[in-house]
């Protein structure tokens, strides 16, 4: 054999190579763990601080105290002031936001992903148009929320004369989270394998049947996650609502959504709640934080912030649960 074995490089060299790669590996694990620990640590410290500060108000007087805080209206006495109106306000605003943004967002997502750019539409909708829309939607997702507030102030509040109402707030936040919902819907639909579409077509289904019966169920997990992430962003927004003039002190809740019309109430029957003045949780927290008295700026603000965090986290937990639930059902 003339061919010599590739030189008998010292086994040491190889070992050193392996060792250095392993070291890199470990360094990366360390860096990764470090960043995880850092961000989690900051979060925990923040929540812990809020709990310590707000705990006196939340848990100081047992269940009765907590209940009292959750069901009392704002007051200038920090011990009796509560967040009932803000919780109901947040709930109503988010309900309207969802009613508007969910069908619009999912619809737009389906259209852009499944219809746009195909030749067989009744109206021509070329690919380049959907590309332009795609770029714009991605950009919109990054626009600061205060800009949406300014837009809403001009358009909804003054132009459409909706005033400082839940309707204005819901429309504003719906606009704010539409890009998020559209983008996540498209991503979720994109993740469905092409073979599924072809298979469904092959047995003679129409496009709508294919989407409704197969694409949507298969992508429901991803779409729902996007929805809930969008909505939990909306629930924490204060800036655009301050811009459109959400109130700070209000002691009466809006009428119950879609409640039947009662004698002597507003002009819109079941829709009265839409035209009612309101406040929301982040605004309540914001107001209390800037007060001079620590009973407001530390204790009550901390307690309300804890409630807000709990609301957001439970929405996110729901998102995770739904994702797992739907993923289990998808089998291919």
């Amino acid at each position, binding site marked *: 054999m003339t061919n010599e074995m590739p030189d008998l490089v010292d086994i040491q060299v190889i070992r050193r190579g392996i060792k250095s790669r392993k070291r890199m590996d470990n360094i990366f694990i360390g860096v990764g763990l470090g960043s995880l620990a850092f961000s989690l640590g900051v979060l925990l410290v923040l929540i812990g601080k809020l709990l310590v500060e707000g705990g006196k108000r939340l848990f100081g007087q047992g269940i009765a105290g907590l209940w009292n805080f959750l069901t009392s209206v704002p007051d*200038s006495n920090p011990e009796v002031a509560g967040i009932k109106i803000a919780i109901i306000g947040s709930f109503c605003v988010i309900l309207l936001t969802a009613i508007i943004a969910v069908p619009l967002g999912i619809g737009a997502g389906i259209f852009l992903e499944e219809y746009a750019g195909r030749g067989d539409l009744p109206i021509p909708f070329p690919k380049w148009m959907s590309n332009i829309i795609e770029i714009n939607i991605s950009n919109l997702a990054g626009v600061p929320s205060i800009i949406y507030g300014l837009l809403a102030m001009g358009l909804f509040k003054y132009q459409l004369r909706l005033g400082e109402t839940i309707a204005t707030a819901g429309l504003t936040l719906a606009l704010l989270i539409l890009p998020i919902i559209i983008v996540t819907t498209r991503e979720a639909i994109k993740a469905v394998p092409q073979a599924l579409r072809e298979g469904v077509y092959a047995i003679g289904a129409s496009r709508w049947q294919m989407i409704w019966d197969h694409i949507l169920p298969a992508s429901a997990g991803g779409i729902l996650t996007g929805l809930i992430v969008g909505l939990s962003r909306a629930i924490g927004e204060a800036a655009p609502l301050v811009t459109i*003039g959400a109130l700070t*002190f209000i002691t009466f809740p809006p009428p119950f959504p879609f409640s039947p019309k009662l004698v002597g109430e507003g002009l819109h029957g079941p829709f009265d709640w839409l035209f009612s003045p309101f406040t929301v949780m982040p605004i309540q927290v914001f107001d209390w934080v800037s007060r001079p008295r620590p009973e407001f700026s530390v204790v009550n603000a901390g307690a309300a912030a804890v409630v807000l965090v709990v609301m957001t986290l439970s929405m996110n937990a729901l998102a995770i649960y739904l994702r797992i639930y739907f993923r289990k059902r998808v089998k291919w």
Partner: protein
Amino acid sequence: MNFSTRGLLVASVLAVASVIPSQVMAQQVIKMDGSSTVFPFSEAVAAEFQKQNPGVRVTVGVSGTGAGFRKFCNGETDISNASRPISKREMEACSKNGIRYIELPVAFDGLTVVVNPQNTWATSLTVEELKRIWEPGSKINNWKDVRPGFPDVPLRLYGAGTASGTFDYFTEAIVGKAKASRSDYTASEDDNVLVQGVARDRGGLGYFGKSYYDENKDKLKAVAIVNPKTNRPVLPTDENVLNGTYQPLSRPLFWYVNAEAANRDEVTKFVLFTMRNAPALGKKADVVTLSPADYSAVLNNVFIKRKVGTVFGGEQQIGATVKDIIAREAKQ
């Protein structure tokens, strides 16, 4: 009807309902908006008023004096909270829309200049010294440059953000021109941030509303301001703010009541209630309340007689005392 068409239907019903301009319950609600400095006072009287008059609803927003006047002159609110007199431009806006108003002084605020408790040298400062520190382009960055004999300690400044009425008043009173200030200082709209800053900084000097000092007396020291007329250093106590000796940093706070709204039963009742109960309720509201006699003077000579317009002619007036304002309002 499947899920998606139902969503579309709800959305379109909402859209139709939204087009109807809404004046729901406008007759039962007293709407207030404006200054964050006046807010605690309005909140305190509004909360108590509603407890005693369950049929009437009062809402208070905090969009700042300027934005508050904008809404007020648009006819959107019944009462505007203001930490300064109405300006020329706002007077024009109001008269263009046919809005007439009754100007009621409801309380006072004393802007307080504070230093760190370890600061043993600066017990009093003159307006001239403050002006040299705060005027635009000022190069004073050490206490020894403020007054001969002060120690060599770096001077660090904390003050109101440029969007606040506090900033406007302080610059006008000290520098002589509204909004004229050096800009190399720690500015915040949240006065609690300024409190923390001065409390941690031996060489710190800051200014903010009196209530923030009152709540943090253990962490801060108030500086007596030398009254330019009497040449005596005066501390910002409630008495000194009211009797007109704490000058030029005392400022009156106002309610501007829409003259037409004032004829509504519930608004009249609310103003009467406020003028009678303010001395008791204002105590917990972070403002310096007037004496009962002064409130009755405002009520009898200004509100009851429906004296419309302003006595300030659109100008900020430094050093106005309660008696002075009431006398001029009555003569109007």
